[in-house]
Every structure is written in C-alpha cells, then in structure tokens.
C-alpha cells in the first residue's frame, strides 16, 4: 500500500530546502522498497518548522519538521510512514496549538491541498461560493459582500461592498476587476501564500466580483519578486479555463469572465491602486490624483474594482457561508478575520489567521513564542514599512482597525515585524525615509523631496548637529508629508519615523 507524504511547495519551504527533502524521501523510499506518493501541497504557514513534512495516517496527518535531507533516513528508521515518534515529530498536525488555536476561514485549505489540483479544490468546498453567486442577481451579490462587513485587506480598510456598489451603479460597456497582488509591504506574505497555495480561491473571488459588478475581464498584477506565485496562477487559470470556471460561458451560465496575470517590475509604489492601473496600462507607475475614483474611472478610464488578494480571496467563503457567518467573527467595525503574518526576529514565525480583536502580545508571545534571538523585544512594527513601531505599553490594545488608527497606527496588510533590544530605532527611522526616497514616484513634492531631506535631518539629529532644532524640523517635515502627500507612500512614511522618535528618543540621542 502506498503512503502519502506531503512536502510543501510554498516559497518559504523551498527557500529552506523542501525540494531536496522531497528528492531524498523518494530516493530513500525506493532504496527501502517502500511505496510512497509525494504530494507537493501548500504550506500550513508554520514557517519555523519548514520544511514541514506530513504523513497521511488513519488517525490523520502527522507532522515532522524542520526536516533536512540528512534527517530523512532516520525518519524512515523511526517508522515515519506509520506516524511513529521521532525527535522532529509534532504528532497530529491539526493538534499543533499554533494551528489549532487559529480561526482559519480564508486559509482553511492552506497546507491541506495540492494548490493546482482542481479535484482537491472542489473536494474542499471550492467553487461553492461561485455556484451560489451564479444563482443570485448582481445586486444580491453586492449586498452579501456589503453585509459581511469585509474591508479592504490591502491596508486602507475601505469597505469592499461600497466599492463594488459604486462600480455596479456606474454604467459602462466594459468594466474591470483588478487584483492588487503587488505585495510590497515588508513583513507580509499572505498574498504570496494565497497565490502559490490556493490560486483557485483567488480566481473564484475575482469571478464572483465580475458577476457582481458586470465586469468580464480581470487582471492580477503580481510583483516580479514572486515568480512561484506567477507560475501557480498561470497554471491554475489554464486549468480553470479548461474546466469551464473561466471563459465565455462560466459553468453554462451564459456569463463571461476571463483573467490574465500581469508581472510587475519592482516598484513599491505600484501597490498604490492608481499607480498600479498606470502600470497595467503600460506607463510609469505614477500615482493619479483622486477623484476620479477608480470605481468610476479606473483601468483604461473605465469603472474598475481594484482590491487586494486577501479581500478578493475572502469573497468565496462569504458567498458560500453567508455574510452573517463571516461577520460573526471580529469586533466593532473590524469584522471577519485577518491573516496576521509574524515576521522578523520571532521564534515561531508564520501565518496566524484570527478574528480581529486579539492583542499584539497574544500574537507575538502565545503564537510567536517571543523573539528568535531570545533577547527582550523592543519594538514591533505593525502594518508594513509604513506602519507604526509599537512599544510595549501598547501591546495590549486589541488588533482592530479603529483602535490602531486611534494611536496613529495602522493594521495595514497584517504584517507584524518584531525587533529585539539590539535594534537602533533611529536607524530604522532613517531607513523608512531612505526607502521612501528610493520608491517615491516623484509626482508630489512632500514625498519626493521630503524623504531625501528626512534622511539628512535624521543624520543631523543622530550626529548631534543642532539636534534640538533638527528635531523640530523633522516633526515639521513629517507634518508636511502626512498632510501634503498625494498618496500613502509619502503620507504614511512619518508613521514609523515619528513612532520611533516618540517612543525611543534615547536612540536619537535625546536623554
């Protein structure tokens, strides 16, 4: 009898040698005359354990990790194929507390299925949302998304249903669905995992969006740093077309929707929606002034829904289970779940999907296990490179859009980057300005010039050149950037800078 062994194909597993482990398992099994079927599944998102291999046993899947090629022989010796104990063993995967204590809605299939197996997808509730949507009117679909409380998961947290409603109510012969998969925020990888690990879910979500607003064409704009995501999406789109889930007559409904992947070219600001549209149109990714909103004049000047990967990927389950089920998670106006990404100097880094409302302390210590270096944690940056550095005094706030806004922060795309006490916050503040200078599209002055001046001013502060005066100047500059920039790039760069300055003045030489 053949034993099924799962070896993830997610980039984060490949980056620590999953291919070599899979190869070694195949060799070792052949040498021992044992029949095994190796499935290259998506990752569970327990990245500190990657490569995390799983064996299918009658009791459920049993996990071993992190496995190196050198461990494979001893795993076979120990009886891995029967799920026996080993120093790298973690017992039943589903019972690992990190996984068990999550609330996985969007990531329900993650790590379980083969990402490009349509059978796997269909056997795990795949396309249930689309089938339901095909039986509904456009207005009903939009209402379901509106009622679910789903807000843009890219970072801006704008209600998705309102965006969709605007596009639905704007008459045009052609409308578009654009997926913002330019996941440039450092410390985040949930879009990458979704595209690599469950691409049909994104395809399904975008198709539903098309039905909801009357768009027949979609684009997925993926960053060039994600070659594996691009490959998985292209493969999944081809499979979905063949099976009739995409094309001119989706599941014989007479409705049409087609999708294409656009590879980005390494510009961070193209994650800003209007710059992204410019880029798809073949130009430099320069931010457009708003209004007009993309929902009214978007791609090629036509009404466009532009949403982040996780926003669109959350739609199938909302349609399948209903808005009420989705909004039963979360708190206040932050409804549903957010896939948090634990990154940086953290012991147990990975993906944690939870309802809004838990605290940073719970996330970083109960799930993350504290710092990887074992040293005390100094600051945690929440929400990507434009997010605020959170000091310990604020670690007990609920992770909720409004609570973070109230402290001048943002949940952004759910990235959580941990820094231990060796971090110098003035270096990180300088880096934020440097990054803004590097990536500014150049359209507005506060961002283009302000970022370069910001680097210089921080250098003067740290070298104690007119320090007091330069601090006043830095605050003034940040104020100009916050209120005078055209988009979030310049507008939010002051977040990491000022939070570093306010909470860790000693790192700037201020006693």
């Amino acid at each position, binding site marked *: 009898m053949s034993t099924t062994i799962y070896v993830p194909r997610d980039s*984060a597993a490949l980056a620590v040698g999953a291919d070599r482990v899979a190869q070694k398992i195949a060799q070792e099994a052949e040498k021992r005359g044992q029949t095994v079927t190796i499935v290259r599944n998506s990752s569970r998102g327990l990245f500190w354990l990657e490569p995390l291999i799983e064996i299918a046993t009658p009791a459920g899947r049993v996990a071993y990790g992190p496995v190196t090629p050198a461990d494979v022989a001893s795993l076979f010796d120990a009886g891995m194929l029967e799920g026996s104990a080993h120093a790298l063993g973690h017992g039943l995967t589903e019972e690992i507390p990190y996984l068990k204590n999550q609330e996985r809605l969007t990531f329900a299939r993650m790590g379980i299925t083969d990402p490009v197996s349509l059978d796997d997808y269909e056997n795990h509730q795949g396309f249930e949302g689309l089938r339901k949507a095909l039986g509904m009117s456009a207005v009903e679909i939009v209402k379901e998304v509106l009622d679910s409380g789903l807000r843009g998961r890219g970072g801006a947290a704008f209600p998705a249903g309102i965006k969709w409603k605007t596009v639905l109510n704007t008459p045009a012969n052609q409308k578009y669905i654009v997926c913002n998969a330019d996941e440039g925020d450092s410390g985040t990888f949930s879009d990458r995992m979704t595209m690599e690990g469950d691409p049909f879910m994104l395809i399904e979500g975008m198709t539903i969006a098309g039905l909801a607003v009357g768009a027949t064409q979609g684009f997925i704009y993926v960053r060039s740093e994600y070659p594996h995501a691009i490959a998985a999406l292209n493969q999944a789109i081809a499979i979905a077309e063949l099976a009739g889930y995409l094309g001119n007559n989706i599941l014989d409904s007479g409705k049409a929707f087609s999708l294409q992947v656009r590879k980005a070219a390494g*510009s961070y600001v193209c994650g800003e929606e209007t710059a992204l549209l410019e880029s798809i149109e073949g130009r430099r990714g320069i931010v457009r002034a708003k209004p007009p909103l993309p929902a009214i004049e978007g791609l090629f000047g036509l009404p466009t829904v532009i949403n982040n990967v996780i926003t669109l990927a959350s739609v199938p389950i909302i349609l399948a289970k209903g808005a009420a089920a989705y909004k039963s998670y979360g708190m206040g106006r932050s409804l549903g779940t957010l896939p948090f990404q634990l990154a*940086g100097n953290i012991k147990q880094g990975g993906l944690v999907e939870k309802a809004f409302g838990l605290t940073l302390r719970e996330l970083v210590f109960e799930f993350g296990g504290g710092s990887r270096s074992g040293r005390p944690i100094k600051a945690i940056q929440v929400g990507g490179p434009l997010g605020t550095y959170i000091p310990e005094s604020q670690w007990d706030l609920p992770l909720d859009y409004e609570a973070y806004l109230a402290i001048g922060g943002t949940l952004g795309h759910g990235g959580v980057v941990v820094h231990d006490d060796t971090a110098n916050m003035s270096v990180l503040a300088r880096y934020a300005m440097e990054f803004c200078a590097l990536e500014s599209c150049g359209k507005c002055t506060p961002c283009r010039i302000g970022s370069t001046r910001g680097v210089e001013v921080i250098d003067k502060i740290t070298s104690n050149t007119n320090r007091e005066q330069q601090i006043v100047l830095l605050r003034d500059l940040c104020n100009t950037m916050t209120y005078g920039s055209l988009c979030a790039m310049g507008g939010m760069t002051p977040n990491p800078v000022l939070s570093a300055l306010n909470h860790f003045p000693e790192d700037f030489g201020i006693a």
Partner: protein
Amino acid sequence: MNAAITTLDPDAQMRLHEILARHEGSATNLLPILHDIQEVMGYVPSDAVPEIARALNLSRAEVHGVITYYHHFRQAPAGKHVIQICRAESCQSMGAEKLLAHAQQQLGCAMHGTTTDGCFTLEAAYCLGLCASSPALTIDEEVHARMTPESFDALVAELRSQA
C-alpha cells in the same frame, strides 16, 4: 528607415521583432514586452528602444522613461547569476545588513556591482515575502532563507564550481 536606428545584431533583431509581433503593437503591453526582452537578452539594450517606440507608436522618451522607472529592468547585462539580498525591516531584524556587508566583501563588489569573473551581480531587494524566515535572498529565481554568512559562502561556492 529601418536601417540606421539600430546596431543590434541580426539575431537579436529577429528576437526583438518576434516579441513585438507577439504583443500586437499595443502600448499597454509595454511592460510584458520589456519583460520578454529582458528574459531573452538578459537586459533591455538601448538600441531596442527606438524599435519598441516605433512598434507601439510611442516616443523614445516614453519607452526610456518606463525602462528607467522600474527597478527590475536592466540597461546593461548582469553577471551570470543575480543575487538579491533583502534589506527590508524583517530581514534587518535578523542581520541582513551584516549579511550584505559579508556578501560585498566575499564577492569583492559593491551593491549593483558585478564580480570580476562576471559570475555574480549583487543587488538589494526590498522584501521577498519570506519574512518569517529572515534573512532571505534570491539567486536568479531561486529562493533561500534563514541565511548565514556560512550558508551564503556555500551557495556561492556551489555556483562557482558549476561555472
């Protein structure tokens, strides 16, 4: 009119024309065209710019502007392998700056530079989406995480031995 504007060799010209024909002369396909050119030729030669501009009915300035705007496009050939070391916050928290300094020293070239043997070009990246396993880097399209100076040296030695 076809003459004079390019000094691309006939083989490169043929490949360029194939790419332009495949994208049907639509200006909205400028990025896919540039990606294809870079994939085939390793960079976007300046001699290709007038040809691209003419095929898409754009000015040379517009095409040049796009090529230089995006970090991904190269105007000169890179080394045999391109190493991109992530220096975003998450990797910084796990020693990316040290790794970058080590790489520069080992390779004997600065950032954006190429080793004297033409084997490696060193670049920075700003997030590779491997932030739970920092520090991370890519060599061409291959990803590597939880890097140390030692594992960096091993990777470089392995690729050098294949050269």
